[in-house]
């Protein structure tokens, strides 16, 4: 019995260390730091400032605008991504020749490096780039400096790229949901004379609701953390800076305001936390965890 206990501890040691050193400690560290003026370059000793950082944050125009941008990003991309990926899943769920090829092609962007994707689209969105060319061809006017160097189009351009990149991934999850719908249901509907559209709305959609909900929640959590594409494409200019970009900029560049950035981190954490709790509840319903 003694030896099993020892074995258990040895087996679990790597996770315990990772959990304590790289998760628990950092979480507590930034919680506490958020109430201080701790920074890398300040000469004075670190002082406890209570809720000052939080008070300052809610009046900081840059932070408020980063919240606004993040919310536009999340609530703009998540619904569109969900609808398009569902449509694509239904499209490739039927039996037809070359199905595997189409699925693989659709999925490809989501395993490509975000830095690479952002570089590619920086060029495509440029003045004289392919996307501007396509827009002109279709009769739309295009911004003079390209889509990314313009306040009114930069964020939406990044959002469009993000949707393009992630639909393939969520399509795969929808596909696994579609597979679990028994085909007898469709046969019964066909016998009763229900068409494709009717079948979709009265069978597919209601039965996919749990999967859709799951996708919406994980995509929301992921989208609240948008950073790389903004960093590469606009460096946060032209009203594109997200909350993570704000944390990055105030926390680990120029002024290294650890305290201030930690407070901002916890505000982001609280927002994401709400969705994490929903995800937790969904997971428990999908499969009993313990």
């Amino acid at each position: 019995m003694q030896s099993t206990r020892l074995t258990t501890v040895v087996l679990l040691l790597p996770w315990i260390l990772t959990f304590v050193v790289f998760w628990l400690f950092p979480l507590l560290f930034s919680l506490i730091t958020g109430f201080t003026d701790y920074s890398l370059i300040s000469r004075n000793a670190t002082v406890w400032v209570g809720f000052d950082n939080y008070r300052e944050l809610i009046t900081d125009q840059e932070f408020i605008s980063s919240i606004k941008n993040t919310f536009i990003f999340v609530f703009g991309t998540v619904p569109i991504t969900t609808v398009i990926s569902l449509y694509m899943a239904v499209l490739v769920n039927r039996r037809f020749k070359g199905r595997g090829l189409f699925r693989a092609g659709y999925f490809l962007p989501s395993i490509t490096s975000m830095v690479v994707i952002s570089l590619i689209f920086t060029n495509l969105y440029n003045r004289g780039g392919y996307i501007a060319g396509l827009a002109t061809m279709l009769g739309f006017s295009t911004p003079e400096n390209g889509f990314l160097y313009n306040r009114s189009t930069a964020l939406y351009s990044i959002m469009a790229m993000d949707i393009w990149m992630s639909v393939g991934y969520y399509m795969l999850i929808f596909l696994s949901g579609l597979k679990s719908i028994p085909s007898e249901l469709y046969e019964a509907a066909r016998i009763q004379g229900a068409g494709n559209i009717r079948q979709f709305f009265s069978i597919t959609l209601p039965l996919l609701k749990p999967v859709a909900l799951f996708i919406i929640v994980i995509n929301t959590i992921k989208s609240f953390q948008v950073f790389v594409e903004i960093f590469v494409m606009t460096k946060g200019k032209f009203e594109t800076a997200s909350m993570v970009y704000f944390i990055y900029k105030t926390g680990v560049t120029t002024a290294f305001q650890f305290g201030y950035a930690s407070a901002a981190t916890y505000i982001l954490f609280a927002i994401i936390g709400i969705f994490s709790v929903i995800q937790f509840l969904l997971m428990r319903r999908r499969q009993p965890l313990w």
Partner: protein
Amino acid sequence: MVAEYIKKVIHYIILTLILGIMVFPLLWMFRVSLMPAGSLGSFVELWQGNFTLKNFYDLFTTSSMGRYIFNSSFVALIVTAGNILFCFMTAYALARYRTIFTKILFVSVIIILMIPAHILIVPLYVLMLKAKLYDTYWALILPWLVNPIGIFLLKQYIESLPSTMEDAARVDGAGEFRIIMTIVMPLCKPALAVVAIQIFFTNWNLFLFPYILTSSESLRTLPVALAHFQGQQAIDWQHLMAGSAIAVIPVLVIFIILQKKIVSGITAGAVKQ
């Protein structure tokens, strides 16, 4: 019959249109990476322009491309190997030894699974600085050696295996570690492969943490190096896309070979990216 046929044609047209939108940017990247420097990249050039490998040659001779490839591969392979071993060990203990202690630890796995890694920006930076690990390979490797998603997937897999073989080996007097490593681990190969691919891809593409936790040029991984390239005035799109192609090709090759495994991993572990 005719209506059925038309429907089929429309279906293929829509499918192909979407496929075009999805793969065009990547094809564009490969095509531009093979264009002679100074090309304008016009649509006509995409079809009729020349092909050259000079951009790739330049990157290897005038930048530390070899070093970046080594860094990306080295870090991603070590992290993947670490995850295979450590996630398996943890998952086995959580699946087979049911005590209060392991139950609490599993809750910690689930919680971390849902906590966004980006909240670590400031604390991880300070931690690495204070531990004198900033700007070393350790900073790129240590935090990611045990990923909760790997533990979660492997635990589920181990629970689906019967424990009769382990019990028999125990009766024969085999030690716990021998049982775990020589009996259970080989049985978990399919799940381990899924975890390995997912961890490798994630780490290969990782940008933010390698970017903030290192400063030396010699420690840059491919995504970090590409972001730095972009900031240089001297670099043109042909070379930038050649560098991008180098970062994408390994992922592409692995994807083509192991497509089925990757897809099953996504659908099984669609919990955290």
